[in-house]
């Protein structure tokens, strides 16, 4: 897991979802964040938009609240790695 990926996750949780910074560790499960299913969906959307990826639903259903933040970071990195290459000139 790249530390910058996790830092991005933690900053979104703290800034947008008012989760205590001490609570945002790689071992924290989604369930332990204290967010309901709608807020969890919003959080996953926010992370996907931040990295411009989609995590396939079969890999991450936010209702599977046992997933931890370290796992989420890995899923994001996997999605970034499998993102189709873009034409840099046209963005």
């Amino acid at each position, binding site marked *: 897991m790249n530390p910058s990926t996790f830092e991005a996750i933690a900053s979104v949780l703290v800034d947008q979802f008012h989760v205590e910074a001490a609570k945002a560790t790689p071992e924290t499960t989604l369930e332990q964040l204290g967010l309901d299913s709608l807020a969890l969906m*919003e959080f996953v*959307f926010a992370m996907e938009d931040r990295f411009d990826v989609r995590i396939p639903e079969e890999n991450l259903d936010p209702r599977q609240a046992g997933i931890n933040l370290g796992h989420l970071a890995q899923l994001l990195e996997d999605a970034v790695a499998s993102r189709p290459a873009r034409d840099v000139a046209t963005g």
Partner: protein
Amino acid sequence: MTASAPVAVTGGGVVSPIGNDLAAFAETLFAGRSALHSQTLDLPGIDPPAAAVASATFDASRVMAPSRVPLDRGTAMALVAASDAARAAGLVAGGYEPERLGIFWGSGMAGAATFETTCRTVYAERRRMRPTSVVTTMPNAPAAELALLFGARGAALSYACACASSAVAIGEAMRAIRAGWIDVAIAGGSESMLTPGVLASWQAMRVLAPVQGADAAAACRPFSADRTGFALGEAAAAFVLESQAHAKRRGAKARWHLTGYATNCDGLHITNPDAAGQARAMRAALADAGLDAGAIGHVNAHGTATAAGDAAEAESIARVFGAHGVPVSATKAIHGHLLGAGGAVELLAALLALEARRLPPTAHTQRIDPAFALDLVMGESRESPALTHALSSSFAFGGTNAVLVASRAVPA
């Protein structure tokens, strides 16, 4: 509690262009210092490309939603104003029965700004709609978040009647308390929609005052011979209202009393005001308070500074109070037209005037329209040593009229 009993106001809170606490608000109000400034509109094909607005100094990102979903800026303002009101009233969890607490909230277009921003992102950047778009932008989002914040179980009601929304919300809370449905209410209103699309919509109606270079601060001149319309603003104001018995039981002191309320409608025209409907509403509110017109020492007018709006209101005030019969202030000149929040913020202005026994000036109006038989407070604030009762009016697009009568908590 009887149908006409005074309702105790035990606390107030505000986020506004002229102050984020009651003391700062009062200081700016009595000084007549304008918060209006020019804002460029980032929108294709817009003409003119700027409008006068009154924005609040407010960081919405620091406000935590009780629901944890993203907050519309107006809802964030509502949460802060209501928290401050509850703190001022000493209303804390455990100090009230949740089943006897209701939320009564007014907003004209709650969520419109977030919805506009979201749609711009979706169309322009081909983004997805967010899972929380509905709950962030629904018009009852402020009332819903407030109900979560206070754990209310009695009522969570939202009123959307344009510029009268929060006056109606406060009045309906009064009625619910008087009728014994609840003991205590968080009542008020919020509005924050200084976005290009919303500003352009109002500009297209030709009701916004043109921005005249450096004079943007003085763009809104209610009842003036040279008035040209209003400027939009953003704000929230909240009050803790309760029965006097409830306030006494928990040892809370009434800072003011709400003594009268009436609402009616014109049913004549979608935007044109009707002096007859306004006069009926003012008389009904006086009757509800058990007061004669002569007992009212101050009217905080709706005063939009539009040609038609001020003409109708000058006529209705003169019909009820007689020519030059009561001192009148119009405070939109300094805080802008706050739409759904206007009735609550302007009630706060009237309450602070009652408390200080000082009437705020109608800023920037130097010469009153000669057609108006009004005693308009102009220039500087005016002392009013015997002031005991005041009236605050809100007259909305759509024809809803709402009038509140407030009184000093300790009679002179």
